[in-house]
């Protein structure tokens, strides 16, 4: 403690007195990582950091031969604080890149910093659609290794239609991530001939769905739910408790591995879609899940996997650049040309700097997996849509001609 305090004092004296910090060693790669490590999203932030850290630890703290200086900064889940911390990383620590950001709003806040400071920003979780769609031109130093909110929900719309569902109710958290997820599902589902007959928007963080459940129409074939965090635990419990047995098809975060261990048996059989499931039956994923669980005592969520893969991708990119930092623009170009073999399956980058990846339609099952001896809830993969692009099957031009998914788009044509 004392030595830390001394360092702290010395550091601030130096910073105050000299107004400078040591320049980075040419062989070092300074990476800033922004995640909420305090506040209500702290546990998710931990998963994010752990995923990245695990890859680093497995590779002796080096990526592509460069020694990595990994600096984690806490944004308390606030977009504003994220900007402050990003500037700290750039101005004081002189990082070559910063990674992270959880909420869509954080992504929207961080992308302009990368442009203003000409520093690479890799969005490893934040999924705001438009960053790699209609607004991409504004952010030349931005690239994403995770997903867009609507990417997995578009195949899910197709899947729901293929199951013969005709009428669906959507219930989704009332903010951008919710609009984009529900929008993606609705667009594809209705283009295939289905009808969304009711759209409900409970506020983000709703703890009691009592007022919403009785208003749900009774003639629906399925319910599309898009929940985040504690909402995900509450909704199925209350819905089933109210005697509603309509099948659920859901956005990925409603049943991701982050909430699944805390869920009851009432969610067995519920279906959701995401670009990762801890139960993907490949040796690559099995090894990842086992190593992660041994190290951190829990099953990895997509928050862990996406950051693990981000580290992997940086590793490959630096290797291909000859083991040294090539500069932000060249880095992005090289990264776009690399296809990685991640725990979640093969992932490539499209020309809008967003991944093309598998989307898994998953069903919650209670079973033993990967040799663990207890019955647990797992997201069993029941169908894989390979190499899904953020534009689904519409094609880039046609997709970008429509507005970004929002509360108003697509309009609810079949609501009364």
């Amino acid at each position, binding site marked *: 403690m004392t030595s830390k305090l001394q360092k702290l004092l010395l550091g601030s004296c130096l910073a105050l007195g000299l107004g400078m910090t040591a320049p980075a060693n040419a062989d070092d790669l300074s990476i800033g990582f922004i995640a909420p490590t305090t506040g209500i999203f702290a546990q998710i932030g931990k998963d994010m950091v752990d995923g990245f850290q695990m890859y680093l630890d497995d590779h002796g703290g080096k990526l592509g031969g460069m020694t990595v200086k990994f600096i984690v900064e806490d944004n308390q889940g*606030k977009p504003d604080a994220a900007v*402050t911390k990003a500037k700290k990383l750039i*101005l004081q620590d002189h990082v070559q890149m910063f990674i992270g950001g959880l909420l*869509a709003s954080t992504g929207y806040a961080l992308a302009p910093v990368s442009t203003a400071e000409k520093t690479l920003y890799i969005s490893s979780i934040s999924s705001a659609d438009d960053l790699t769609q209609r607004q991409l031109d504004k952010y030349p130093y931005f690239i994403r290794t995770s997903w867009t909110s609507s990417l997995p929900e578009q195949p899910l719309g197709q899947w729901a239609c293929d199951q013969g569902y005709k009428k669906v109710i959507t219930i989704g958290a009332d903010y951008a991530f919710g609009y984009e997820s529900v929008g993606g599902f609705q667009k594809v589902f209705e283009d295939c001939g289905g009808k969304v007959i009711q759209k409900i928007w409970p506020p983000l963080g709703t703890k009691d769905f009592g007022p919403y459940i009785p208003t749900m129409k009774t003639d629906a074939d399925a319910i599309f739910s898009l929940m985040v965090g504690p909402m995900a635990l509450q909704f199925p419990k209350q819905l089933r408790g109210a005697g509603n047995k309509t099948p659920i098809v859901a956005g990925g975060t409603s049943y991701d591995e982050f909430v699944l261990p805390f869920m009851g048996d009432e969610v067995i059989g519920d279906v959701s879609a995401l670009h990762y499931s801890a139960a993907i039956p490949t040796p690559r994923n099995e090894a990842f899940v086992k190593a992660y669980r041994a190290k951190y005592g829990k099953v990895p969520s997509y928050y862990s996997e996406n950051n693990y893969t981000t580290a992997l991708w940086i590793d490959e990119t630096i290797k291909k650049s000859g083991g040294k930092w090539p500069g932000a623009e060249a880095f992005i170009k090289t990264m776009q040309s690399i296809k990685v073999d991640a725990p979640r399956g093969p992932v490539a980058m499209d020309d809008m700097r967003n991944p093309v990846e598998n989307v898994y339609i998953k069903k919650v099952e209670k079973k033993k997996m990967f040799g663990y001896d207890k019955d647990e809830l797992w997201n069993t993969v029941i169908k894989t849509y390979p190499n899904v692009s953020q534009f689904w099957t519409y094609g880039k031009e046609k997709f970008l001609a429509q507005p970004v998914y929002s*509360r108003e788009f697509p309009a609810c044509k079949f609501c009364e």
Partner: protein
Amino acid sequence: MMTQKIKILIVILALVAFAFIVPRSGSFVVLLATRAMAFAILAMSVDLLLGYTGMSSMGQAAYFGVGAYLTAVLATKFHFGMGWDFWIVVVLGILIGCALAALFGLFAIRAGGVYFLMITLALGQCVWGLAYRWNSLTGGDNGINMSGRPSFGLDLTNETTFFYLVFAFFAVSMGLLYVLVRSPFGRSLAGIRERELRMQILGYNTWLHKYIAFIIAGGFGGVAGVLWAHTNGHVSPETVVLTTSVDSLLMVVLGGAGTLVGATLGAAIVFGLREYLSTLVPWWQYALGGVYVLTILYLPMGLMGIPSRLRQRLGSKDKGEGSKKLASKPS
């Protein structure tokens, strides 16, 4: 006893030293100091209400928020306020803060004490709700990003230049508020704080006095918001959220209500711990919590109460020793 003149001199010297040292201490510190000063203007406006008028407002973020949103909306939708017209935005920011306070004041001033607190809280949340749900104007949860800062001869994109600008606003605000609280109007506010009924009997229209103080505080909140929007170039519902109001109130209590300088100290400490210490150690939250708890337990007058507290201590010690001597004499 220190005379008022010496106190003012100390504050001015401290400000000059601050303006001299900070720009030489690395750009991140400059950025943080800039943000702390913009927020300190809000904290001082809370102090005008809490410390000088005795009204604990829980909705001060509303005026801060409208100032910030006004700046961001004008800049992104109308490309207004990025040149010399920045000064028009400043005036508009003050006006919109005043106007909103004038409206809210009609509801809030009728009540006192905890009811005033509840009403301002509710009104503040209304503004938050608007920011969160009025997607077409505010961008909803995503907020609004502005590109760059204004430039009019002075290039504010330079962190140090912007620091000096915000410093000027901060110093002027402090000066104005100081003059205000020392004026007859300010004295009557203090009278209301101490005993409203007596002021009424003396013939003062206390409602009007409180209403005007509330509007003035709103105006300072508005200008703080304009500056805040430019510190990070990002405005979101997080700017208007309840925590912002609570933070400003806590800063005042921490530094010492009814001192203006205390509000500034509070802002400096909270920003220092939350945004600087958090880059160094993971246990910064304990430090912040500890400071709050210790202040409330041992310094009911806030940090600005330390000198008088020390004097009291030393004084009572002398007295204690004196009485001991007296007591030991007869034996």
